[in-house]
């Protein structure tokens, strides 16, 4: 097993950011996606929205926006670009940079969703620190599995719908725990109630991130 090269990882992450800021349309597209879904949500629930419905709606928006955001991490790679990458970087460096970048991206997307919800619908969360913790841990878990799924989906050579199809069932455990935790945060329950769920989420985080890391090297090269 090759030793990780931190210089390469940082270089790759910087490359992703530079591409992102150079194009701008991709990120703006995702943020617009979030905004328009939340607007549709606002229009559909005219008479105010119950906290449990808010919870479900919020995570559905975040989940699909995250799928959108993560899917372009490999769909954007052309064949020539990936051959170029094979010669420069090892699979481990490459996947770590992708995972870190996707985690940051999902965090940005969920932060944006929080803003949109607070602006257009409402923000019923009472325990804000717990909610932020859930967003960080849940976002990392989603990004970890979505990175691997987007790589698999891009290898099948078929459309974006395969990507959401692949990632939905493997994300169900994460989503269920996160929904349960968010309900606690909305009700402002005592932290001690949520410890077991947070522990479960942390375990799932570790499992997902390490699995994506170890499995990626079998996918990368053709």
């Amino acid at each position, binding site marked *: 097993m090759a030793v990780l090269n931190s210089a390469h990882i940082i270089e790759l992450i910087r490359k992703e950011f530079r591409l992102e800021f150079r194009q701008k349309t991709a990120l703006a597209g995702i943020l617009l996606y979030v905004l328009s879904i939340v607007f549709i949500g606002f229009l559909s629930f005219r008479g105010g929205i119950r906290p449990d419905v808010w919870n479900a709606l919020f995570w559905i928006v975040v989940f699909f926006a995250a799928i959108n955001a993560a899917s372009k991490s490999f769909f954007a790679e052309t064949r020539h670009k990936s051959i170029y990458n094979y010669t420069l970087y090892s699979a481990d460096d490459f996947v770590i940079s992708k995972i870190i970048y996707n985690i940051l991206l999902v965090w940005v997307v969920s932060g944006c969703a929080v803003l949109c919800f607070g602006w257009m619908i409402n923000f019923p969360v009472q325990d804000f620190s717990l909610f932020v913790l859930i967003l960080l841990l849940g976002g990392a878990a989603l990004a970890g599995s979505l990175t691997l799924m987007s790589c698999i989906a891009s290898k099948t050579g078929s459309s974006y719908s395969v990507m959401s*199809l692949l990632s*939905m069932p*493997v994300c169900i*455990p994460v989503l269920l*725990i996160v929904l349960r935790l968010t309900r606690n945060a909305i009700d402002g329950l005592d932290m001690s109630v949520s410890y077991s769920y947070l522990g479960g989420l942390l375990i799932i985080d570790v*499992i997902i991130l390490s699995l994506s890391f170890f499995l990626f090297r079998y996918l990368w090269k053709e």
Partner: protein
Amino acid sequence: MSSWWWKIAGILLVVYSIVMGFLGEVPRLDILNETIRNLYFHVPLWFAMLVQMGISWIFGLMYLTKYNPKYDIVSSRAAYVGGMFALPGIITGSVWATYTWGKPWVAEDPKLQGVMASMIVYCVYYLLRALIPDAQKKARISAVYNIFAFVMTFVFIMIYPRLAPNSLHPGNGGNPAFGKYDMDNNMRLVFYPACLGWIVMSCWLLNVMSRIKKLEYKKEFHEEII
């Protein structure tokens, strides 16, 4: 696996468990009553499915280390056999639930949610295999998805029900249904052979399906797999 005695043993065990499952003595318990006989059918079918999914996972791992097509054949066939055993498993469970819980599917139950999620995962796995035309690529990518998905469903079945301890399912909390059912020794005499019998039958099915797939492979690539 060319010997035949284990196949005979499997048939005998399953026939024994079916006959004794319907005719044997069972304890009279409240609510459960005669439905406790479902223990001889539902639980062994699930065990056989879990064994097949486990085999599929292990052979998926072996494929990724060796890249030998025979591992991929066994891995994918085991996933199909597992699916075949899941179907009667769900049906027997639903029939049982109709008479004890009052309805065939209780969607709030963490255990049933786990079952549903893992069924979807394996359906997506079959779909993924159908989507990729190239044989080698198909084997590699589906092995990766299989490994990831199996671990996730395992997590889902083992961790989630422990966090949400309000399951109606007997033996809840991720533990198999041994103590809770108040099984007496009479029942164990049927239950254990039933588990063993169904697992042996699922392995036989796997054996046959893998051999068919190997022949198809030979026909397609003019290359024998040992």
